[in-house]
Structures are given as structure tokens and as C-alpha cells.
């Protein structure tokens, strides 16, 4: 692999790659992100390679496994270039037809296209699909065009041109000014201004200085950083090298959780390829600037996403937060100035250099600029990864991009910011998404988890769930977090089990104050947020659980009961046969009755009761009506009377 020794040579190398490929060459991109691989993408890739060879197209068509474009709900995703035809949920059996029809005859295979659920219209091109149409995909848009294991794919799209610009034409001060002017804020959770963090490190005494990528993504349901690092690792490396040049660092680390094997693999390959091309190592692009990157695998602790815990772990010790009344930017790893930014923050850096701060800041609210990637999960039609401009409303993300709530259910709340964030109710759907906007509403941006909940979700149980997660993930060092969360979880569990009592809400509020004010690190201080935000917006649900022993969402098992309305039951035997606990008695022409003692509240009877009868009821907060007498259970059919 030839070393690239200047920005001129970089452009030459790019032209060289492009000329080998030809502008109109047909190619097949199959998403090889974790989601699509789980739904069989590697078999699809193999099928394409074999079929293309079989039909004699090997010279004319190239196939590649790419990064994740985000539409995980409909994976495996396949895009055919140059027409950009997008096929969804492709299986190996579909491949011969795609090759003969689309690649050979240039016709579209209709049945694999996106179909709009409401209008029934089909969309052939990726950009016509509503899920993509309302996004601004500056960061993940290239994922489907790139084989993450090929530096050539990244170079072909203009990769490393921002680095070349910085090293050949900009002083570190100028880069810093540009980043500061762009108002880029940390995408990992805190939203700290990136320019200010870099300036602090740059001006801090101490040598060496370090730059670090925080890829210890651990929020339940979040996979933004994973998709970036797996799908476009060079964009993160390029940002990191630019950051290193700016603050005067020559050593960088990527702290990535070992639970992300594909991210570890792809970024390790990317580093090696960048080194071979002189984009990393000694004398980068002939500029005289030296910089190396090491990959450090995390050992599976959520708390290591916290900056001081991450740095302690990087030093080879147990990952526990340490007191930081002095910023880690000034005193970080081995007490040296260390800039730690999240994966997505680093990936924004080349973009800002290429676009310029003004064009980057075109999108956004007053104090939150650019785009943000969210992983949209939960009760949502289009589960996946979405990149939207800051300032978009929650309503647009959930209904326009996400396609709304499936199953005709009603929206109830959206949880943003992971375990440290909060739940926002329907009244706030028109809230503009930005760091300060979300914080003011009692939640936070966090790293971009977005969990949508429908009417069947119990908000007390949601708070309990997150606190349970945090009791496992707290490092256990400080008392307000370790003991405070333990007691909060106990109280919340009691409430969801119908053992709540007067004073529980006040007790929870006091424990929340102690953790919020006195815990050692941000994880502990934000741990009460799931409770505080659900209390703020759904207080009546807490009160119903405590005072009436009623779960309004009919979700908490200890507070609900299933009951068969004898007026409606037609003794069809469906529930009797399916009940796994054998808790339903009755027979043909005998009305069915649930034995409440035996019932495990699995809800199977409710599911299988034919819609024309709707005899099974889920109730809460009221006594189960006594079973009808044995005599009244017999159904006398009209047909038999005559």
C-alpha cells in the first residue's frame, strides 16, 4: 500500500480509485451492520457473489457488505447503484431475481420495495422512503456506500480531505477557532462545548497530552456509536487526528466496549490501513505531524462511559469514577491533559472542517447545532437509527420519521437520554430537540437513546426498570448512589407490587435529592432522573398505585387480574386450551371461568379470545367479580332450543 505524502497525493489517490471504478459502474450494497447480520445479511452477500458469478456479471458488478444505514426494522437492506434502488427484508432466495431483473434488465423488483402503510404507494429509491426523507444524514448517510473494511471506499468519497486541509493549510489555532465557531457540543451526554474542552487541554500544562474516543456506549436500546464505528470507522479516526493536531497530542486511544466485536474489528483494521497510507503514524501526509492510536477494550461496565471512570480503566485499574473538581481536559489519564469525546462528536469534526463552521451551524436551535443521531426504539413502527437536524420536534421524529405507534395504540411518553434521562409526555411532543430544551423539560439529550412508549406502558414500572439497571451498573463506591439507588429501587418495586404506602413519594424525593446533590459522579447524580421525570409528568399513576392499588396502564402484574365476562363468553374453548397454567375451567357450552389463584397473568386468554366475543377483560384496582354459579354456566344455544 503506497504512502500518501501530501494533500496533492491524496487527491491523486482518490482520482485513481475513482477511475478504476467508473462513475456508472453497477454495485450492490448490503448492510452488514449488526442488526442486518442478525437477520441474515451475510447469507445475502454470499448469495449475491455466487449469483453474479453464475450470471456472468463479475466484471461488471461489485458487491459489498457496508455500514448500517439505520433502517434496522426492515433489514437486511440492499441498495443497488447507480440507480439507488432500495430493497428491504431481502433473503437469499430473492437474490437470483434481483440479479437477473435489476442488474441485467434494469427493472425494479416491485415486491421488495418499501410500501407506505397508509397510501399504499411504493418507493424505489432510498431517498423517497419517508423514513429517510425527513432525515439529514450528514454522518450516517455514507454508511451504505462504504465497506468499513476498505479505506479506498472512504477515500473515494473524499475521506481524509479535511485532515489534508488542516495539515497543509491551517494552524492549530485556526482549527480550534473553527470548531469553537461551529458551536459543536459533546454528543456523549453532557453537551459540553467541544471547542472549549479542546482549548482547556491545549492551554493546560503537561506533556504528553491525550485524545480519546469514548465508544463505551451502554444505554439500554442505544446503538448510535456502534453504527458509526462499525460502519464508518475512518470518519472517527479522521476527527481524532484533527483533534490531536489541534491540542498538540501524539497519542490517542479508542475506548470501545468489548461487547462490540465488529466495532473493535473494523476500527482496528481502519487504523492499520490508515497507518499503511501514512494517514497515521510518523509524518502524517508529509506534514511532520506524528500521531498513533491504540484500541483499548472495555470490560463491560456502564460506568466506564463516565469520563473519569473511563480514564481510570484506561490506566489499567478498576473502572471507578474519581473526584474531578478539576476537568479531565486539564488532568485526565495519568494526570495529563486529556480530551475525551464521544464517537459521534469526533465524526462531526471532519464535517465541520469541510463544510465550514457556518454551514455546519445552519441546522439547529440557538445553542445546539448540527445534526444528532438517535436510536429510535420501543413502541415505534420504524425501529432504527435516525439522524435529524437539531431543532426538529419530537413529534416529527416519532411520527414522520418513525412512522408512529404500531397496532393503533396511543402514544404515551418518550424516554430520552438513557438511564440518566427522563420521560416526556404527549404535551411536550412539539418540543424542539436540543441540549438545553430537553434538560429544561426534565430529561436530557444524553447520547441519543430514544425509547417510545405507548398506552400499555406503566410509568412507575419504567422508573423501576431504569433504577434496576443502575443498581447493577453503579460502581458501588459512593453511598448516595450505591445505597440511595438501592433504597429507591426497593420502594419503587414495592409500589409496583401493590405494597406502596403513604410517604413513599416523599421518601423517594429525599433519596433523589441525596443522590442528585451528593453522588460522586454524573451517573449517580443523574440516577434519580427516571423517577423525577415520571413523577413530574405522571404523578397520578404513582398515586393510583399507592392509594388505589391500581395500575392505570394495566401493566403491573401484581395489580391486575384477568376476568371472563359471563355475558359475553360463548364457550369457544380457545382460552381453556391455550392457558399455560390450566387456570381456566369450562367446556363446550360451559361458560369459562378463570381460577384467580392459579392464574399467572400471562395474558394469553386475552390474546386468544376471538375479537367477535371480547369476553376476556383485564382489570385493575377493583375486585374481580365472583364467578357465576355452576348452574348459570351452561349456555343454552338458540339452535338447540328449536
Amino acid at each position, binding site marked *: 500500500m503506497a504512502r500518501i505524502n501530501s494533500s496533492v497525493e491524496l487527491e491523486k489517490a482518490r482520482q485513481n480509485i475513482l477511475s478504476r471504478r467508473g462513475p456508472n459502474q453497477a454495485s450492490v450494497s448490503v448492510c452488514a451492520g449488526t442488526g442486518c447480520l442478525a437477520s441474515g445479511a451475510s447469507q445475502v452477500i454470499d448469495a449475491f457473489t455466487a449469483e453474479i458469478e453464475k450470471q456472468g456479471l463479475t466484471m461488471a458488478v461489485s458487491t459489498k457488505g457496508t455500514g448500517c444505514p439505520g433502517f434496522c426494522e426492515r433489514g437486511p437492506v440492499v441498495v443497488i447503484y447507480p440507480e439507488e434502488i432500495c430493497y428491504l427484508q431481502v433473503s437469499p432466495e430473492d437474490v437470483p431475481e434481483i440479479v437477473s431483473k435489476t442488474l441485467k434488465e434494469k427493472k425494479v423488483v416491485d415486491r421488495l420495495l418499501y410500501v407506505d402503510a397508509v397510501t399504499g404507494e411504493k418507493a424505489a429509491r432510498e431517498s423517497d422512503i419517508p423514513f429517510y426523507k425527513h432525515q439529514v444524514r450528514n454522518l450516517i448517510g455514507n454508511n451504505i456506500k462504504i465497506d468499513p473494511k476498505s479505506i479506498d471506499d472512504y477515500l473515494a468519497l473524499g475521506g481524509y480531505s479535511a485532515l489534508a486541509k488542516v495539515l497543509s493549510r491551517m494552524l492549530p489555532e485556526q482549527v480550534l477557532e473553527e470548531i469553537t465557531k461551529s458551536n459543536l457540543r459533546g454528543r456523549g451526554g453532557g453537551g459540553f462545548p467541544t471547542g472549549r474542552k479542546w482549548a482547556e487541554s491545549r492551554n493546560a500544562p503537561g506533556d504528553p497530552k491525550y485524545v480519546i474516543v469514548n465508544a463505551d456506549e451502554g444505554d439500554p436500546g442505544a446503538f448510535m456509536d456502534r453504527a458509526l464505528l462499525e460502519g464508518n470507522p475512518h470518519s472517527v479516526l479522521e476527527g481524532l487526528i484533527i483533534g490531536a493536531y489541534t491540542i498538540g497530542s501524539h497519542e490517542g486511544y479508542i475506548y470501545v466496549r468489548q461487547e462490540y466485536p465488529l466495532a473493535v474489528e473494523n476500527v482496528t483494521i481502519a487504523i492499520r490501513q490508515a497507518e499503511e497510507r501514512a494517514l497515521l503514524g510518523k509524518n502524517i501526509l508529509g506534514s511532520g505531524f506524528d500521531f498513533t492510536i491504540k484500541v483499548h477494550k472495555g470490560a463491560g461496565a456502564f460506568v466506564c462511559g463516565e469520563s473519569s471512570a473511563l480514564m481510570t480503566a484506561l490506566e489499567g485499574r*478498576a473502572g471507578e469514577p*474519581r*473526584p474531578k*473538581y*478539576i476537568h479531565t481536559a486539564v488532568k485526565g489519564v495519568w494526570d495529563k491533559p486529556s480530551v475525551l469525546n464521544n464517537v459521534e462528536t469526533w465524526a462531526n469534526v471532519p464535517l465541520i472542517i469541510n463544510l465550514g463552521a457556518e454551514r455546519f451551524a445552519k441546522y439547529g436551535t440557538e445553542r445546539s447545532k448540527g445534526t444528532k443521531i438517535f436510536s429510535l426504539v420501543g413502541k415505534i413502527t420504524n425501529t432504527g437509527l435516525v439522524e435529524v437536524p437539531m431543532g426538529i420536534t419530537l413529534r416529527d421524529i416519532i411520527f414522520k420519521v418513525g412512522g408512529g405507534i404500531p397496532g393503533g395504540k396511543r402514544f404515551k411518553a418518550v424516554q430520552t437520554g438513557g438511564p440518566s434521562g427522563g420521560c416526556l409526555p404527549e404535551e411536550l411532543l412539539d418540543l424542539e430537540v436540543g441540549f438545553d430544551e430537553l434538560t429544561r423539560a426534565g430529561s436530557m439529550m444524553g447520547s441519543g437513546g430514544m425509547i417510545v412508549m405507548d398506552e400499555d406502558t406503566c410509568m412507575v414500572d419504567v422508573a423501576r426498570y431504569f433504577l434496576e439497571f443502575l443498581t447493577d451498573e453503579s460502581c*458501588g463506591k459512593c*453511598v448516595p448512589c450505591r445505597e440511595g439507588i438501592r433504597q429507591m429501587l426497593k420502594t419503587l418495586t414495592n409500589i409496583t407490587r401493590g405494597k406502596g404506602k403513604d410517604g413513599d413519594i416523599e421518601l423517594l424525593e429525599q433519596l433523589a*435529592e*441525596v443522590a442528585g446533590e*451528593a453522588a460522586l459522579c454524573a451517573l449517580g447524580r443523574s440516577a434519580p432522573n427516571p423517577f423525577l421525570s415520571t413523577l413530574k409528568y405522571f404523578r397520578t399513576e404513582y398515586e393510583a398505585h399507592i392509594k388505589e392499588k391500581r395500575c392505570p396502564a394495566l401493566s403491573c402484574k401484581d395489580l391486575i387480574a384477568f376476568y371472563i365476562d359471563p355475558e359475553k363468553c360463548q364457550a369457544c374453548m380457545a382460552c381453556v386450551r391455550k392457558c399455560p397454567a390450566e387456570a381456566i375451567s369450562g367446556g363446550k357450552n360451559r361458560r369459562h371461568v378463570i381460577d384467580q389463584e392459579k392464574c399467572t397473568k400471562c395474558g394469553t386468554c386475552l390474546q386468544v379470545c376471538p375479537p367477535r366475543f371480547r369476553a376476556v377483560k383485564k382489570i385493575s384496582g377493583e375486585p374481580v367479580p365472583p364467578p357465576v354459579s355452576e348452574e348459570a354456566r351452561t349456555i343454552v344455544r338458540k339452535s338447540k332450543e328449536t
Partner: protein
Amino acid sequence: MSELLLTIDGKEVKASEGMTILQSAQRAGIPIPTLCHHEKLEPYGACRICIVELESQGWTKLVVSCLYPVEKNLVVKTRSEKVDRIRRTILELQLAHAPESLPLQALAKEYGADRDRFEKEPSFCILCGLCVRHCTEVKKKNAIAFVDRGTRREISFIPEIASRECWKCKECFSLCPTSYLQAAYFLTKGLAFPSSSSEPASEE
């Protein structure tokens, strides 16, 4: 080290740069409660009982005094309604584990903490880490360590090291604010190295 002036509980206090609020308060004879602090050990900041309030231009901020470095013209309040409330809850949380601990009982009396506020889960240890840190930082033996994390965190002797080192040291015993440490040691000894050859018989 240059000297600077700060105010603690309305009293002007002299301190040298690099000191913590706790150190300067102690030097001035102003009491601040601590559970995990020890002058010979690195500041740890785990029990949070030494929390104090800083005042600056009309707003207040809570910090732990064992870690926060003194600054010129800092205004510190070691007691306030909020500080007392937090200390009280911290004590109540700890008393659920070690209701018989004398230092905890003394502080509970001062702050009006209710010993029975939380359901008892007697683990006897309050995880202050004095033993672990003394062994690591002062003795440099690492015979005792924390294991697991979160609510499952506990201290544990490392039998291979403890059987070699502990019988002649036992310095950590006197640091423990509860009786757990000694119990843990004798349990480990009973189970893991009952007849250690390196230990003189007279010790028994």
C-alpha cells in the same frame, strides 16, 4: 506554597494552596464529620458525609470537603439545613447495614438520624474502604480488596496474600468503623488458611 484566606462558618481561615477544605477546617479546629477519610490516605470521596456548602455571588453549591481544593476568598458553610438533611439520610442509609457501629451512632445522635428508617440489611460493612486503601497505599500488600460492583460490592481478603502477610500486621483492624473487618479476616483465615505454616503458633 502560597498562603490564602477563606471563610469557613463566618470565620476567616488561613490555608496554603493545594490543601482541601477539610484540611483547612481541621487546622482551624472547625469540625466536619468524615467516615472514609484518613490523613495518611489519598482522598477518596466515597461516604460523602463531609459535604459542605459553598457560597458565591448569591448562589450555593454543594461539594465534598475532603476533595475540594481551597481557593482564595472561598465562603464555606459546614452546616446548613440542606447539608444536615443530606448527612442525616446518608447516616440512615449506612445504619441499615451497620446499626451497631459506634461512629455511626454518635453521628446519628448529632444529626437526628433515625436508625430504623430503612429496613435492616446487616452486612456490617459500610464500604468506607479504609482497610483496602491502607493495605494498598501504606502497606503496599493488596491483601484485601473490593469485589463486585454496585449494590453487590463487598470487601474480601485475598487468601494467598492474607495468609502470608496479615498475621504480622493487622493494622487495618483499628481503622474499621464497624466490627466487620475482623470478622471477615477470621472467617477467611478459618476457611482458607487455618494452619498457615508461616504464622507462629503463639499467635493463635
